[in-house]
């Protein structure tokens, strides 16, 4: 057993400060264990969210030594314990208290994304037929646990605060999951370009780097979506072809 110091941000909407807590650490501990231990023994009112403790529920997102992390999956053995470990709330969202932030903006964004609209069933019994490789492609995006660490690290949200113009990486891969779904028939390209602001993403790949599920957010999700937007809106031949089709129809 040895002791480590945790600098935990304590405060609320009106402001706050880092406070030091020394606590015993043992082999195999993760940051969330230390936070829970401090909560149980020294600061009963220390606010933090957590649930599954296995990296699946996405509740315990925070910034550990400045890096967006799930506290339950960040082992103390990965951190230099000779220095205090800083633990603070995600910066892209308003603080409610201590490590708890108001992430409700995300839920409002999700509501605005066009829902899944499958084509009519392929078989009389109401079922569909899909190719495994088509499933594999969207399955990656379905791994998302909605921890919002990608939103936290995205500079368009974190630094430029463009919540009204940009939906952020989490929801771009949600759109990707729907758009690339082999059964889906809805068209989300126009919103992607306008209301959802995909153009603001300049592919710094920070989101991919912090994703605890290892989803290739930028390469497999956002870039293919950007290509679809380009095909639909900026390809002169495509534009001309659609214009002709429209004329012929009219």
């Amino acid at each position, binding site marked *: 057993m040895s002791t480590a110091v945790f600098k935990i941000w304590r405060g609320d909407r009106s402001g706050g400060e880092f406070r030091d807590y020394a606590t015993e650490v043992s082999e195999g501990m993760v940051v969330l264990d230390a936070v829970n231990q401090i909560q149980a023994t020294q600061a*009963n009112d220390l*606010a933090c969210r*957590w649930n599954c403790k296995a990296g699946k529920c996405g509740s315990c997102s925070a910034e550990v030594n400045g890096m967006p992390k799930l506290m339950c999956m960040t082992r103390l053995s990965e951190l230099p314990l000779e220095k205090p470990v800083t633990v603070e709330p995600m910066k892209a969202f308003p603080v409610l208290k201590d490590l708890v932030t108001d992430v409700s903006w995300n839920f409002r964004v999700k509501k605005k994304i066009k829902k899944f609209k499958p084509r009519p069933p392929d078989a009389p019994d109401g079922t569909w037929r899909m190719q495994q490789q088509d499933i594999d492609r969207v399955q990656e995006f379905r791994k998302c646990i909605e921890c919002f660490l990608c939103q936290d690290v995205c500079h368009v949200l974190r630094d430029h605060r463009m919540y009204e113009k940009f939906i952020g990486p989490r929801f771009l891969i949600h759109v990707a999951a729907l758009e690339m779904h082999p059964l889906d028939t809805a068209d989300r390209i126009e919103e992607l370009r306008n209301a959802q602001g995909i153009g603001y993403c300049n592919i710094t790949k920070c989101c991919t780097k912090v994703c605890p599920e290892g989803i290739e957010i930028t390469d497999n999700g956002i870039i293919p979506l950007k290509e679809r937007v380009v095909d639909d809106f900026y390809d002169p031949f495509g534009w001309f072809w659609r214009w002709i089709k429209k004329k012929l129809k009219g």
Partner: protein
Amino acid sequence: MIRTLQDHGVHQGIDVHMEQTILSLLKDGERVVGAFGYERERGRFKIFRAKAVVLATGGIGRAYKITSNSWEYTGDGHALAYEAGAELLDMEFIQFHPTGMVWPPSVMGILVTEGVRGDGGILTNKKGRRFMFDDIPENYRTQTADNEEEGWRYCQGDKNARRPPELLTRDHVSRCIVREVKEGRGSPHGGVFLDISWIKKKLPNAEEYIKRKLPSMYHQFKQLADIDITREPMEVGPTTHYIMGGVRVDPDTQMSRVAGLFAAGECAAGINGANRLGGNSLSDLLVFGKRAGEFAAKFAKENSLGNVDNAKVDVAAREALAPFEQSRGENPYELQQNLQEIMQDSVGIVRNETEMKSALEHLGKFWQRVKRLGITGNREFNPGWHTALDLKNLLTVSEAITRAALERKESRGAQFREDYPNKDDALGNVNTMVSKAADGSMQVRREPLPEMPDYLKQVIDEMK
């Protein structure tokens, strides 16, 4: 499944009140007409008026020290229903999942899915023996493989093969693990070995296969325990996983004996009997969640909003705020830990009367201590306060579990009593029923099982 439901649900015009805790159900006469609680964010009280209420609060895992459940599994729905006058049925039946992580200490209890064994994982003791072959219960002998080769064929989807003994019922596997550990044949950290890496002897691309079939287990062990499950065995031991008992509801409508109060999923009782089989709680909550919703909606349409008794709300509010008045009171986390230790040690996998009676005495003292809890800080998102309030629910369900377990003087399903190690046919025909008496005390009684309806008998005959 959660995401699919959520993705669908957000487009249905449903109002979701997140991070709210319900403290009591409100009644107008004999009918439930709403709920009283608080929102965690600001700690403000709230009254929800409702024509019908569906409880879907899950289980009670936090009453135990080692559990696969989250901190929120504090038996809230069970306790709310009990306080509102509903009955709790078969609370003694708690499932201890045989494979939880045992090391490192901080992840103790986290679930290792049954899928590991389903895909060929084997349990061995420190001598390398597949001990599950040593103790196959008589009634499962014909359905269980008697050699390793057949067990492996079953895991590969051979319909003619019988299942390996690792996939026997969870209570049995849990007890076998406890036996191995008690008799000194356990793994270094007090569990046994669960090995999936051995299948490389059978499959050329075993590593790929394991990663594809068990991706989350691979990552869980890699990240939390530094163990590569494609190369080395895991260490596992039993963990509190699921309560079969719960709120007694009508099997068709899911309504409890309190009008307007419905329950579904883990907090409702009945469907899983004395022991749940893997996968059944998902089908349970899909089928009976839907039914509960439909019948609650029907009930709501047929009834008007009731009256809320403000005096009762005031009492509940004062009670909830009491811990703030004792800033030098007892730490709620400490009491929670003491409770978890007592339940783990005395009302766990292997039970007996002496230990459970002593647990009841402890619970009596905890009921006194819960009145002396103190809180620091204010009402805004205060986990200390939340823990203090949850403790009452934990104590209610812990007492119900212990009293029901004492009442069932036999071993059946998930309950194993070393003082009554066999089944008792007479007790096999009764449910235990816990309810709140007029004087506020907890009553336990036995009730004969209802007669099976003819259509069910017919289904069972067809299966034979």
